[in-house]
């Protein structure tokens, strides 16, 4: 526990000294936060989730999520990149139980602090990540894959990409596997740019992905199981921690503004203080939500029966929808409190960047898609999640 406390503390130092000072430039230029990643590598925070026996940090998912939150508080893009990397690592740690994957984790993720990205969406599937058009082709122990990915966040900077594909050329669209595609056997040809309102530093361009890999780098379990037991719940957990970091940055900014107002007229409680008290009640709901759901996942993370329950899937969907709604709520309240000072694009409060980032949360994997999935599951689920 002491070592892990150390990890969160190390992340705070990196966030303060490296991530926060670069955040405005990363946002303005829509560029990859490379100084942040260098610092995270130097602090060995990319392999935090890898078990100690493979040389990693041996941290729990809760602890890694807290690191993502600390980073997201300083720069949402850096927080999201860290979160997305850890989601991929979690898939390998939990489902890559073969010798080939353990060697990859020890040598590349720990040894070289490799950065992992994800290619689960595909042009032509209508956003349904549980179906693929592209297929793995296997010849003599080697697999090949070509995929048109509308988005691969920080693809150009990643050392490897985990991509979904149909198991074989004859497999139905829903029979998917997850393939570890490494450079230099991975080539990404950009097909679109990335000039968005928020999360600008994630550089989430579209690509045509072409890769070859040893057959041992296809995860043995069906992607359906990896998705429901790890990829989806861990994504929603990691993202919601980053978004809570955004909300926390906004509430800290508004607290500073109210304090400054109060100092001008000691003895008079500024009207905005009431709004701050309201904001703090919403912030508490948000914080309680992410802490509780992290604990809930940890409690059942090894219990396949519990992970496969529909009520669990609905609960993790609800976490994503709630967290992405709460972040907009908190940042909006902070804006109200800070007034025109917060509304200025050149303000040191930085609220305008937080506002733009906050609105991305409901759109990246659209909440409507997630709610539709829950709605369908609830037709048969028996109990509330």
């Amino acid at each position, binding site marked *: 526990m002491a070592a892990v406390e150390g990890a969160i503390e190390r992340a705070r130092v990196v966030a303060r000294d490296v991530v926060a000072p670069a955040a405005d430039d990363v946002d303005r230029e829509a560029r990859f936060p490379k100084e942040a990643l260098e610092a995270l590598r130097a602090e060995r925070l990319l392999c935090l989730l890898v078990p100690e026996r493979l040389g990693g940090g041996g941290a729990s998912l809760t602890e890694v999520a807290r690191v993502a939150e600390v980073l997201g508080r300083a720069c949402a893009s850096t927080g999201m990149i860290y979160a997305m990397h850890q989601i991929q690592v979690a898939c390998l740690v939990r489902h890559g139980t073969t010798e080939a994957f353990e060697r990859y984790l020890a040598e590349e993720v720990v040894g070289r602090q490799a950065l992992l990205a994800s290619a689960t969406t595909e042009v032509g599937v209508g956003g349904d990540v549980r*179906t693929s058009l592209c297929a793995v082709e296997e010849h003599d122990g080697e697999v090949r894959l070509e995929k048109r990915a509308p988005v691969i966040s920080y693809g150009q900077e990643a050392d490897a990409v985990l991509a979904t594909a149909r198991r074989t050329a004859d497999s139905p*669209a829903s*029979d998917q596997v997850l393939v570890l595609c490494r450079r230099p056997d991975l080539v990404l040809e950009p097909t679109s740019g990335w000039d968005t309102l928020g999360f600008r530093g994630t550089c989430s361009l579209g690509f045509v992905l072409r890769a070859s890999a040893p057959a041992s780098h296809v995860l043995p379990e*069906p992607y*359906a199981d990896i998705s429901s037991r790890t990829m989806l719940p861990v994504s929603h957990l990691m993202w919601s921690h980053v978004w809570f970091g955004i909300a926390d940055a906004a509430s800290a900014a508004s607290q500073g503004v109210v304090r400054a107002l109060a100092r001008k007229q000691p003895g008079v409680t500024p009207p905005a203080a009431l709004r701050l008290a309201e904001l703090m009640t919403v912030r508490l709901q948000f914080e309680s939500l992410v802490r509780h759901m992290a604990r809930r996942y940890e409690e059942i993370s090894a219990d396949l*029966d519990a992970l496969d*329950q529909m009520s669990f899937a609905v609960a993790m969907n609800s976490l994503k929808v709630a967290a992405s709604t709460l972040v907009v709520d908190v940042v909006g309240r902070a804006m109200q409190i800070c007034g025109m000072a917060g509304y200025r694009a050149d303000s040191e409060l930085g609220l305008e960047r937080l506002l733009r980032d906050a609105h991305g949360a409901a759109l990246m994997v659209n909440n409507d898609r997630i709610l539709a999935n829950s709605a369908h599951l609830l*037709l*048969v*689920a028996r109990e509330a999640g």
Partner: protein
Amino acid sequence: MAETDDQIRQVLREHAKLPVDAGSIGAETDLYAAGLTSHASVNLMLALEDAFDVEFPQSMLRKQTFQSIGSIREALDSLVRTVAR
């Protein structure tokens, strides 16, 4: 048993949206590998509950229960036995 399996196949044919005909699916064939999506599996559960007049308890509402015709039959059998008792 064969009769139950055929009834299950009929439900599969109407609701599972498989790319192959349900009649050609063996009792132990993996339905997910045969193209059953998670979305279609929910419809399948609802249709099975209607066809067999049962209600799957929470503990059965997971992927493994609907993995094959055989696993569906076992789940249905256990429910029917519970009702009969």
